[in-house]
């Protein structure tokens, strides 16, 4: 039984993801924010916004910015409360979580939530700076982010693949699927199809991770407008409600966690979110999942409970191998079918770190309202529930939001 929603999403906007050489961080946020405001069908003015919740990771080092609220105040011409949340790749979903709590508290009726990242302005040191989201001793051991995920992937293939080449192929197929999903996404950084062979021929980044196992370096911003659920229909006839907003944390350091082949924070946050929403996994038909590296999408499919631990690769392989036709490839299991990363995920849509969590919400919002245009996913019976899963670092934090259009208020 779905409980009272935290908030309703009434508008959403985003920039294209990619190398946005002519944008400043604040100009991207404002573009996405204004698009979100203008997308509210029955009209919403800047003056209606009572607070802003922002999420970003590296603006202080990539753009020498601090006090982001002050920038956004200037750009939007507003003097309302604003706060900025940093939680690495989970920055904007953490901002969204805070916004949900603020609306539920009764403090605000309408808030703007934004996420952004400008990664290409410091291309020469971005690999170093991304390691702020890891333990300093991992940095001192020479690890890069791709290296840390490669260590997860290597151990996963060792523990569960046990030399079966299909495991290696499945971890490449995830990239192939997500690239295919981005072909009709006009905002995506990469809209080209790739093959498993392309993945295996791409340059080695951190064996066993190759370039095409990785999400890219991206710029971009996303914004959504939330309001108190009870007043949502003042603004739109088709609100999407957030019925679960859950967060779990774990060690920042991969090495000190109980397992390197499980994201415990994902398992905990998904479990809590499903209980909060009062639904089962099988009710989820669309999931926007954190696929910074393909192994992470595979781990999500297990840690969420879709596949049993160690069998995700097999499920993925069989789903993709048996797929025929259509533009979106679902994962299938025992009595369930779920479409994952229909906009291309982090892999192909792009991964401006602090924008990604909200990009997932944007995608679900558009898909659930049937507004995804040429990239609209065709789900038999419609998408009743969608899930957004966003993690920070190598799993130090996980935010899970569950969205639906059907609630009883």
């Amino acid at each position, binding site marked *: 039984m779905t409980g009272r929603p935290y908030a309703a999403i009434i508008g959403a906007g985003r920039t294209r993801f990619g190398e946005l050489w002519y944008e400043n961080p604040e100009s991207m946020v404002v573009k996405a924010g204004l698009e979100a405001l203008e997308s509210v069908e029955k009209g919403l003015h800047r003056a209606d916004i009572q607070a802003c919740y922002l999420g970003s990771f590296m603006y202080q080092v990539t753009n020498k910015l601090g006090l982001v609220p002050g920038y956004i105040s200037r750009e939007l011409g507003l003097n309302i409360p604003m706060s900025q949340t940093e939680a690495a790749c989970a920055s904007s979903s953490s901002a969204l979580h805070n916004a949900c709590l603020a609306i539920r508290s009764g403090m605000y009726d309408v808030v703007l939530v934004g996420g952004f990242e400008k990664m290409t302005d410091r291309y*020469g*040191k971005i*690999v*170093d700076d991304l*390691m702020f989201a890891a*333990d*300093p*001793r*991992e*940095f*001192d*051991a*020479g*690890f*890069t982010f*791709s*290296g*840390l995920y*490669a*260590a*997860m992937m*290597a*151990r996963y*293939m*060792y523990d569960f693949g046990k030399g079966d080449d299909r495991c290696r192929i499945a971890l490449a197929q995830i990239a192939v699927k997500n690239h295919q999903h981005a072909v009709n996404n006009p905002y995506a950084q990469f809209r080209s199809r790739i093959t498993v062979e392309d993945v295996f021929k791409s*340059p*080695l*980044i*951190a*064996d*066993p*991770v190759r370039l095409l196992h990785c999400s890219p370096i991206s710029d971009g911003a996303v914004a959504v407008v939330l309001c108190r659920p009870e007043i949502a229909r003042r603004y739109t006839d088709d609100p999407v409600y957030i019925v679960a907003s859950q967060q779990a944390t774990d060690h920042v*350091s*991969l*090495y*000190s966690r109980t397992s*390197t082949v499980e994201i415990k924070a994902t398992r905990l946050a998904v479990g809590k979110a499903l209980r909060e929403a009062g639904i089962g996994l099988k009710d989820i038909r669309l999931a926007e999942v954190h696929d910074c590296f393909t192994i992470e999408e595979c781990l999500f499919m297990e840690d969420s409970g879709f596949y049993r631990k160690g069998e995700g690769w097999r499920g993925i392989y069989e789903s993709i191998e048996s797929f025929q036709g259509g533009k979106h490839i679902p994962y299938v299991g025992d009595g369930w079918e779920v479409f994952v990363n229909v906009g291309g995920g982090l892999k192909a849509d792009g991964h401006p770190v602090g924008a990604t969590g909200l990009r997932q919400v944007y995608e679900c919002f558009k898909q659930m309202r049937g507004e995804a245009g040429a990239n609209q996913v065709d789900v038999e019976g419609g998408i009743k529930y969608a899930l957004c899963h966003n993690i920070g670092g190598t799993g130090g934090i996980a935010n899970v939001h569950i969205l639906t259009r059907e609630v009883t208020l």
Partner: protein
Amino acid sequence: MSEPITRRKILVDYRIRVSRCEICGRRYFPPKPFCDVEGRRSRIRYEDYFYRKGLFYSGAVIRRPTNRFSYLGSFISCIVEFDGGVRTPGRITDIVPDEGEVDVSEFIGREVVPRFRRTYVDGESGLIYYSSLAFSFADDYYEYREYKPVKPSEGSEKPGIVGYGVYIPKFRVKNTNPAMGGGVIERAVPFPDEDATTFAVEAGRRALIHSALDSRYIGKCYIGSESTPYAVKPSASTVIQALELGEPYEDGFFTGGLDTQFACKAATDLFIDAVALVSCPLFKADYVMVIGADNSQAAPGDPLDYTVGAGAAAYIFGKRDVIATLDHYVSYTSDTPDFYRRDGEKYPRHGGRFTGEPAYFKHVTTAMKTILRRSGLKPGDISYVALHSPNIKYPVRAALSVGFTMDQIRPGLVNRYLGNLYSGSSPTALAAILDIAEPGDRVLLVSYGSGAGSDAYIFTVTEKVEEKRDRAVSVRSQIENPKRRYVDYATYRKWKEASSV
């Protein structure tokens, strides 16, 4: 990184410090003051893995490193699991991965051993960071020995050498031009994350293992070197902290130490001081460590560029469980500017042929003849001669001229395969002899340091030498180790430069 952050990291990373809950046995790295499970009931003890083996848990071959690590090219980063389940991050050192994809799963489960290495340096003028979170595979080049301290014997004897350790890096370069190098046919090459300080720590660790001495009993540490990585800031303090020399107090140790410089005799000059100290009633500790360590420098194309090696030899002097007593000593010095390096200069300069007759031969043979005369011994009374070896020709000619035979000289001529280890040269030759010496053997050590001077010592080997022998990693086994790897001249130069920043 800042100086305070560095100091805090040193306390954890030099020894791989772990906290352990005495109630439930859970371990934590980085260490923390309470146990997650026991909470307020926690009883925390700290332990370290400086001498322990771990297992490669997982890892990756880093092909696109951070800027900080670009000096290493491609390398393996990993997670290491120790006894009790605690895991640390680490880097596998001394391996250059193939260009094609490496199957990381083949490393999983293999034993690894901590090595004391640089992590990276802050440019030309910033701090140099060291850590033991660098590992080599246990079946790689470095032979593993357990550190099992035993209680020293009661009473005191004539002072001398209690233990020693030699560290030679894994890599070698061959001298392809036989006309150059004066008989040196191959030389030890540092990996880019090594320097004289890391050599000193590794040699010192081996000396502690060999002597089976609790490191807290050592009260002084001298590092003789002409390539210490800092112009000002002692390598000795790094070695003392890493090896925990002396009685611990708060986060430091009741030990003195300093870096010394007298070209290639910077270490041997201190042997007599070490013996004097342990014999001095004012000096409350019982043992002194002296290390000769050099990442020997030479300008590209210079004749020295065909002879320089890399490595260190460490000696512990004391009055208990002595393996070789010190019986005679002579030192001879004159202001002879045959070889020098001005402050701030990268490479030493030398006087070419002037380094021979008026420099090396004059000082070495004077010291050698004098010690024989003063001790009343003849060349035939000496079992072996260990000499400073800038090449092979010089020591052979010097020793033969005083009346020694090749049989006495040959066992110490290890620089043929290691190159000139500068401050570590004659100490390594001495170690190669102690590796094979029998009780009762007399060993003559003659060093040479440009600038210029020679120290001569006569030691007599005791029965204790055999008891400790199995704990040594012999010089010969390092020379012949089948896991040693050869690099070409260009790589040798590149690594030498990287390790000298």
